[in-house]
């Protein structure tokens, strides 16, 4: 089992790491990535392609940087975006220095911290052969139970969490009607409101960290859906949906601890007139006690 290692997130330079990539290292990489381009191990081919020596794979250098981020930033950090620009080829068998710096650490409302890093690889002469950057997220220390306060902040409980506009297309309504065995028409089926839910459409994702909690997840799904229509949703409507989370709470259940998030979607047409209001509850279940037992 891996032990989470916490590291200070004060902007600083990272401790440099030196590696001398050998032909064996790169052949292992070639086998893992199925990139057997001979410029990485055959001197003659490399020469014919304009290189003085066989060259190290650029993505191999990026992979080394990515792993070193685990040492530099700590194992409770998740890398969201990593970019590596391969500026110069590096000959196989020469020493490379890997380094970088933590440029900024910005606390987010949900308790996480966004980390921005600059990264580099230098050759023996100090020339930069790879430069890169990374955005990573540091999760707050896991507590004994589910992080309800963090979740309430993440979903902006009680506030508008986001507005999204969707055009109700004839093909979408027809496909939806076919899927539920209804007859297609100008009015969308009564359950069509679910197709305009920004959370289900993955346009709004404020609680993704719930899938990375240190507790085994035992299930999840919709707990309930309700809708009140002022008028039917119709083909040709342009509907703006505003989502607001109204409740976050937990309950004990047979599958462990149940975590509920309840949200309200207000649907308005292009004139701003209310068309419908839906209320949806979603539940995830965790074995919080099981995680306690593993400690």
């Amino acid at each position: 089992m891996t032990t989470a290692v916490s590291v200070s997130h004060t902007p600083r330079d990272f401790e440099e790491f030196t590696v001398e990539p050998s032909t064996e290292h790169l052949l292992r990489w070639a086998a893992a990535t199925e990139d057997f381009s001979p410029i990485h191990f055959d001197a003659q081919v490399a020469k014919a392609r304009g290189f003085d020596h066989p060259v190290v794979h650029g993505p191999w250098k990026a992979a080394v940087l990515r792993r070193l981020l685990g040492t530099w930033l700590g194992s409770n950090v998740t890398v969201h975006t990593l970019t590596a620009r391969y500026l110069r080829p590096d000959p196989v068998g020469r020493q490379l220095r890997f380094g970088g710096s933590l440029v900024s650490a910005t606390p987010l409302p949900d308790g996480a911290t966004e980390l921005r890093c600059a990264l580099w690889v230098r050759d023996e002469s100090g020339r930069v052969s790879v430069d890169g950057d990374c955005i990573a997220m540091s999760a707050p220390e896991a507590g004994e139970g589910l992080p309800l306060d963090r979740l309430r902040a993440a979903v902006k409980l009680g506030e508008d969490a986001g507005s999204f506009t969707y055009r109700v297309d004839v093909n979408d309504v027809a496909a939806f009607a076919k899927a539920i065995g209804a007859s297609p028409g100008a009015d969308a089926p009564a359950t069509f409101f679910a197709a305009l839910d920004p959370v289900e459409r993955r346009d709004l994702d404020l609680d993704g960290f719930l899938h990375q909690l240190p507790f085994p997840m035992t299930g999840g799904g919709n707990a309930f859906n309700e809708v009140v229509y002022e008028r039917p949703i119709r083909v040709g409507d342009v509907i703006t949906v505003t989502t607001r989370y109204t409740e976050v709470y937990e309950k004990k259940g047979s599958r462990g601890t149940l975590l509920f998030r309840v949200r309200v979607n207000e649907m308005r047409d292009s004139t701003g007139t209310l068309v419908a209001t839906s209320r949806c509850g979603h539940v995830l279940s965790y074995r919080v006690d099981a995680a306690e037992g593993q400690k």
Partner: protein
Amino acid sequence: MMPAETQVTDPAEAEWVELAHLEDVRVGEVAPPHRVTTIGADRLQAAIRSALGDIEIPLGIADICPDPLVFALAAGLPRLTNFAQSIDGGSTWCDRAPIGEEPFYAVSEVAQIAQRTTSDGRRLVRVNYQTRFTNTSGALVGTATGSSIHIGSIE
């Protein structure tokens, strides 16, 4: 022969001009979708471990698609051929959701073609290939982008 790197690190701030197509490479061209798994991630981790020792990090798109350029070309997308030199210009990986045991679906496309002239008069073309990875529910798990750099001869 000019070393390849002098072309790529050219400090000239010439404008990149976007192209819709070049040779038989077209922006928007999509490779057939295919299924990928996390099986190869173990070999990849072993390959890096041989050089670096044990450093454990969470599985990411970079473990599924360690070389975005090679991945997109293997998926069937074309690469420019009429240049003096072609090299891998860089990679970007974006993780959008945790990676589990389930398989993914990968769709690679030619995302951008751009060109400019280097300070020594060579034609420099950059082709970005982007692959989107979705899970079995259709949710985006991450993307991987590889840049292919093509350098022409001095005109």
